[in-house]
């Protein structure tokens, strides 16, 4: 079973994502903000992280940087999920080292497909 960490500060979005990925046979860990995500990553080594960008205190970019600089986690797949979906936001996210950038609002079906693809390649 693939391990996935989902980070988002919106409880209702988090709820949908959690339900959907469990349904699709993922081992799901959730974090309600950046700080919680960093704490979670201390003891969970996921295959993929769904990462919101705009969060208070510790934002998605800081977490991505932490992961890419982490000796063990550095190759984990990271997917940004953000409501900022202008072209420059997307390219900025990819340049920072994300494997994919998914704009909110998203289709859950497509998101699951995209995650699966990333995990195969």
């Amino acid at each position, binding site marked *: 079973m693939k391990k996935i960490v989902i980070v988002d*500060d*919106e409880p*209702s*979005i988090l*709820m*949908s*994502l959690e*339900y*959907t990925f469990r*349904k699709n046979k993922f081992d799901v860990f959730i974090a309600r*903000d950046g*700080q919680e995500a960093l704490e979670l990553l201390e003891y969970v080594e996921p295959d993929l992280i769904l990462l919101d960008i*705009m969060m*208070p*205190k510790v934002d998605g970019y800081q977490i991505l940087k932490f992961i890419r600089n982490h000796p063990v986690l550095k190759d984990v797949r990271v997917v940004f999920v953000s*409501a*900022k*979906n202008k072209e420059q936001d997307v390219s900025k996210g990819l340049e920072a080292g994300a494997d994919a950038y998914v704009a*909110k*609002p*998203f*289709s*859950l*079906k497509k998101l699951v497909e995209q995650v699966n693809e990333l995990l195969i390649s």
Partner: protein
Amino acid sequence: MGSIAIIVLLVLYLGLLFIVARWAEKFRNGKLLTGPYVYALSIAVYCSAWTYYGSIGVAATSGLDYLTVYVGPLIAFPFWYLIIRKIIRISRINKISSIADLLALRYGNSRSVGAWVSLLIILAVIPYLALQLKAISETFHVVTNTNETSSFLVDSASYVILIIAVFSAFYGSRFFDASEKRPGMIAAVALESILKLLFLLLAGIFVVYFVFDGSTDLYNKASELEGFAEKNRIDGAEGAVNWFSLSLLSFLSFFLLPRQFHVSVVENRKEKHLKTAAWLVPLYLFLINLFVFPIAWGGNVLFEGEQVNADVYALLIPQYMDNQVITLLVFLGGLSATVSMTIVASVSLSVMLTNNLILPFGLSKRIHRPDFHPTALIVRFRQIGIFLLLMLAFVFYRSFAMDYSMVSVGMIAFVLIAQLAPAFFGGLYWKTANRKGVLWGMLTGVLIVLVLLVLPAVLKAFKGYGLLEIDMDEFGAAGILDTIGMGILDPIPAALWWSLLFNTFVFVVVSILAKTDYRQRNYAEMFVDIDHYVDSHINAFVWRGTAYISDVEKILVRFLGEERTQRALRIFRQRNQIAPEEDLADARFIKFAENLLAGRIGTSSARILIQGVTKEEKISLNEVLRILEESKRQIEQNKELVKAGEELRKLSEHLQSANEALLTKDKEKDEFLNIVTHELRTPITAIRSASEILRDDDELPEEFKNRFLENIIVESDRLNGLISEILDLERFDSGKNALSFEQQNLNEILNSVLATLNHLFVSKNIRLIRNGLEVNTLVWLDPTRIHQVFTNLVGNALKYAEGEPAIIEISVTLKDGVQEVEVSNNGPNIPEEELDLIFDKFYQSADSRLKKTQGSGLGLAICRRIILAHHGKIWAENKKEGVAVCFSIPLDSREKPEDSL
């Protein structure tokens, strides 16, 4: 004290003055010397020995008349300020160095006006100078306890006068350029003004508090004297008219006396110094008169029944009390008054003598000769002139004025000088005034004064010497005076009124009837409308003819020297953009050259010199007026252009800042839209994903189904709330949100808000504390908006209140006409640096505990806008436990209060 000791003291004193003057020359640009106080003090040169001794004599013998000499100038001061400012402007531009020069220039650069004015002034001032010398001589005898001897050769007072004359002659002529400033002389005069005031005050204090037992004691004793009451009131209409006349006379002399003209106009450095003089000089006059009355009546009490000269009470009293120091100091004060007056008067007289009499007439032929180098000669003339004038005054005093009291001779001199008044004031304010009017008017006035006042005085003096046996009464002047005085006026006021009346009448009538010439018309325009021309006077001078710069240059070199001439020419060419090879002179150059020369040799002589090398065409009067009109219009246009340029610059500045503001606004708007779209997408994302699950997942357990449906509803509400808040905010920011004011009581609004939120208090088990329920002031406000603010603040408090029990405290207070509300909870603190930021749009705290549980992030931003629209303030502060959000609004917030912001 011995004569020798006094003479030594005198020499020492003059030496001190000389050192002060030298020091002032050396540091001529020092702050103190060029400042307003030295200037104002030098104007106090008005207070001569006359003040020092004469006033006391008058106060002792004839009562309040002495005050007129000071009431006049005091009344004059507001006018003085305006008129002198005008003259200063005219004189600066035209390099005018004396009152004779001023009048000569105004009446067409007229040699004759300059000469007659100078003659009149010299005629009038010599007896006046004689008075000063008399004062010195008399006081010298008092101090040394000697008597005046009939032969002036053995009278040691003569030598005192000789010393002063030499000093003045040497000192007064040190500068060739008559319009140049003399900081040394002015510093010495200012110092003397301080000394004479100080010493007279000292004498006054001595008399009142040491000789007598304070002013009450003095008054009581004096009031027992015979005639005290009669002398110290102005008797009925007659007395009032005489009093007023004498005040008018002093008023006029404050403008017309040559020494006043010199210190207040020629020596003025900055126009704004007049402002200091405008209060300091009246104050000075007040102070110096403070003890005149007590000294006079103190003397009357002490020397009752004795034959003593009341003029010198200030010396006699300390001497009588055997106080050598005060006697000497008073003597030195009187000496200061005399010396300063003598120096300034003789300097200005000698300048008039050379520039308006000797040069234009005596030297008018020689002056054109190229080998004639007049500089040294002019200085020599001035030195001799000053010395001769003082000697003449000395002769006058020894032969005529001996048995005349100081005041009457001085008054006759004043009445003579007053004959300049119509020409003077008319010249400044009436364009039609012209030369013929001035000359005829002055002649009339002077003749009247000569017949009515001077002749009787001379006859009386002659009679006193047994030279002529014609009595004043036989001559009939007294009878005439009595008749024209209509039994009301004393001789001096009668002569003043009649002479001035005829003088003015002739001046006005002849001015209107006589044909004027274009030069006079030109200067009339420049003088009367000086404010128009002050920046461009050189263009206001009308002149047409043929002249060569090189010819004029030769003259300038003779009077100014090669170096100064070349420097002046360079500046002139630069300023007027004239090529160095251009040799044909225009009106501007002629005026420029005349000005350069005028400072040295006076306006009339300057004109004569320039005329010698130029060929001037006559211009018709109409043409002068047309040219003047043209130049006036040009000046106006220039002014308007400058003004328009200024406005344009302001406008473009304004535009630029508006543009910058717009750019920032644009940037803010972009930022705002970014955040708004993000905030809108968040609930949409939640709704969309929940809906997708509900649609696709057939096996969704009931529990999850309900949760997702609930999410959809909550997020839809959130979306809706967000949209209305964004619209709300935008309406405030674009100023479309007008408030509708009503008078309401804040507690009532609060009650209704709390009623709707009551269920939340119950469900969250939060305790509510309310303070200030008794406050029921009616406040002008928009109730819907304030309701919104309360809902928001209480809503936030509900979100963050925590603990057992969770508490919300709401206080309403009224202080200083301002209604203040505080809503506090006992939840977590807000980091200090974020306290101000929470009112920003979409502000999110970095502290996750404060993370909004729900809400748009716009609530407080809207609250702030509502409160600002009520001209109030909103702020947040941390409590020991929790956070308080407070706002205050004025009781009437419809109008913006004056002191806010």
